[in-house]
């Protein structure tokens, strides 16, 4: 029994058939409870007022926007090294979810920034990084769609993901260098004492769990979809062979 067994599409679909309902349930539970807790039952921040409630959307989505990219990077590496099709398809499946997360992070960031910065958009390094990420996700998805042959597309997008990751780090550094920011320091870290109080912390954790589960659930569903699409292509190709 090894992890690689799940690289078999049939095994993958059978397993996810079992676990998916649980993931759906967990996602809905965490998100609903976390967001309601955050929206209705947390006090205002003494400085930022009620805008602090946006944190329950902004921080988890920003985290997932980056983690989605990391997951795609790992999946791309697995595809390039071990050539497991499910891995490449999972990377493809994660991109639209990642772009949705990036969009949420960008929009909530801009909405949050508006009263504090006095304008909706500021070229703050972090916000700019997410804009960069957004552009890159679009390029990645369009490249997948532009290439007809699945293996070719998987190879090309994996290479792009690898090179893009290096440039993502470079860009991040460049943005910091170019405009040292207006953003507040990391609001979530292990020594929470210095950062945010418990009243904000627990619902935030719940929301993060909800976004993580949402991401996993959606990626699983989309990977199953991509596997089926791939199988459909294979079947049609097989028909042509006869």
């Amino acid at each position, binding site marked *: 029994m090894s992890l690689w067994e799940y690289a078999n599409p049939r095994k993958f679909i059978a397993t996810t058939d079992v676990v998916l309902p649980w993931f759906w349930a967990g996602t809905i539970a965490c998100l609903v409870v976390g967001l309601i807790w955050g929206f209705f039952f947390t006090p205002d921040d003494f400085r930022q007022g009620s805008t602090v409630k946006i944190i329950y959307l902004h921080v988890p989505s920003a985290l997932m926007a980056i983690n989605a990219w990391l997951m795609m990077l790992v999946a791309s590496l697995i595809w390039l090294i071990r050539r497991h099709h499910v891995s490449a398809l999972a990377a493809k499946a994660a991109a*639209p979810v990642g772009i949705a997360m990036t969009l*949420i992070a960008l929009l*909530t960031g801009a909405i949050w920034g508006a*009263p504090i910065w006095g304008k909706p958009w500021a070229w703050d390094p972090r916000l700019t990084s997410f804009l960069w990420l957004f552009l890159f996700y679009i390029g990645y998805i369009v490249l997948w769609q532009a290439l007809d042959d699945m293996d070719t597309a998987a190879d090309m997008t994996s290479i792009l993901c690898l090179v893009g990751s290096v440039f993502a780090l470079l860009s991040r550094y460049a943005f910091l260098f170019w405009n040292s920011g207006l953003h507040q320091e990391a609001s979530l870290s292990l020594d929470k004492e210095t950062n945010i109080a418990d009243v904000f912390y627990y619902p935030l954790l719940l929301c993060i769990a909800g976004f993580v589960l949402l991401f996993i659930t959606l990626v699983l569903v989309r990977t199953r*979809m991509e596997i*089926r699409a791939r*199988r*459909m292509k294979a*079947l049609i190709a097989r*028909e042509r062979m006869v």
Partner: protein
Amino acid sequence: MMPDLGRYATEVISAYVVSIVIILAIVALTLWQARKTKARLEEVEKRSVRRG
């Protein structure tokens, strides 16, 4: 029931609305695409079984 959001009510509510709309959109899109793909695959599979 509704908490007092003070002068930032628009911002907070719009942030929640926008986020929830995006989340629901990606979920709906995913489910719709998944269902469509599944249906099409079943059709192709039926066809290939018929042909032998």
